[in-house]
């Protein structure tokens, strides 16, 4: 049922000449969730988001946002009415004052909440009569986010929202994000700040070279990814541990370190069967999961 997902793409692709920015992307972002979009610079995250919002036309494939087809201009307008979007670098109209730009944004959306607007303006201490171009960078960022957070849209899309934010502003951003999510907005945001993603995201999608490498819930990643450090009296052959779920094995002397995306239990069982002397299991954080996933993809391509 389309209601289950706020964003669905089918084989969405975008090429510029010979280079493929996005390759046959099958993305599905669930409703009522906070989904993070991870990827290296140039992986295609912004391109994907722009295609979803009608700023770029896909080369092939299709997609829907909130049930609206993305490459139909009428439906694109309809979907944008229910989506709040803050682009990378959080652009604003420099020639407008804070008051003018808020009034301008407000006029387009039925889901605008005046009480939220007033609250946020107070919290951020934004000077109403000052022109945007004479605001400090921090204030401009807060204003750009305010224009999204003063609404109750069905979907919030943020492209690198915490970029350039100091830690206090970042906390405020995450708090506002969580507050909107609690009120029913689905959130889809791309980020390089893995620690923030780990805190607030329910779900993570990893994009690399235009293709989706991973689409998983953070909780399932937390439960299944394990690093198992083993010490043997005599190192067994690596192939003993090449079972499903094992992504990388490193050996040094009598030590073996296994990077497993799941099946850690079986690895340990095998280790015990091979007279392991010491077993040390540690969880793997999202940063390492991301790095390993990307590296494994590169190894696979070679």
């Amino acid at each position: 049922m389309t209601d289950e997902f706020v964003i669905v793409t089918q084989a969405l692709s975008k090429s510029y000449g010979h280079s493929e920015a996005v390759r046959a992307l099958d993305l599905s972002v669930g409703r009522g969730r906070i989904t993070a979009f991870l990827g290296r610079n140039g992986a295609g995250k912004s391109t994907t988001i722009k295609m979803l919002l009608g700023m770029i036309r896909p080369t092939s494939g299709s997609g829907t946002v909130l049930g609206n087809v993305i490459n139909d201009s009428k439906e694109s307008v309809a979907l944008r009415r229910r989506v709040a979007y803050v682009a990378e670098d959080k652009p604003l109209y420099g020639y407008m004052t804070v008051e003018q730009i808020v009034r301008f944004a407000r006029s387009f959306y039925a889901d605008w909440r005046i009480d939220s607007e007033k609250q946020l303006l107070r919290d951020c201490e934004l000077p109403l009569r000052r022109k945007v171009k004479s605001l400090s960078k921090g204030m401009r960022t807060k204003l750009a986010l305010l224009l999204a957070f003063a609404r109750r849209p069905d979907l919030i899309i943020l492209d690198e929202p915490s970029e350039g934010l100091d830690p206090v502003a970042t906390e405020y951003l995450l708090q506002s994000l969580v507050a909107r999510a609690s009120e029913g907005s689905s959130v889809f945001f791309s980020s390089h700040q893995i620690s923030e993603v780990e805190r607030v995201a329910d779900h993570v999608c990893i994009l690399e070279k235009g293709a989706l490498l991973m689409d998983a819930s953070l909780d399932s990643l937390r439960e299944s990814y394990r690093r198992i450090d083993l010490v043997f009296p005599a190192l067994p052959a690596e192939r003993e541990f090449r079972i499903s779920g094992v992504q990388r094995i490193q050996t040094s002397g009598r030590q073996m370190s296994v990077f497993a995306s799941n099946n850690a239990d079986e690895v340990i069982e095998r280790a015990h069967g091979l007279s392991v002397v010491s077993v040390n299991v540690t969880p793997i954080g999202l940063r390492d999961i991301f790095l390993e996933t990307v590296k494994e993809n590169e190894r696979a391509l070679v």
Partner: protein
Amino acid sequence: MALFFKLAPTSGQPLYLQLMQQIRHGAETGALLDGDQLPGIRTLAEELIVSPNTVAKAYSELEHEGLLELRQGSGAFICVKRRTQSLTDRVQASRRKLRDLIDQLREAGLLDEEIHRAFEAELTHPVLAVKKR
């Protein structure tokens, strides 16, 4: 009523499970008493800066277990029933046993780190592995 919950996103355990444990721990140690009200989903999510789905799932699972009572519109309330009370007593007793064991191990010359790793290793041993809740 606010306890000091602290969730660790990199500890390898789903956040909702951590929250559940900390709430249970609160009930066990008496920091949360029968009838105490926990913050609403949105409030707690904003305070901890975690996804509201995490809080919602923790609350819902605890309601399943009987520790929480979710009243429509009012919030989440602790229900320490007698069954849970005996569980609390058992946990308290186990903690005392553990304390004694740890003291023994320390006297035997083991460092805290070594004791910790030993526990971890034994807990993950497949033969003794208990299916995670």
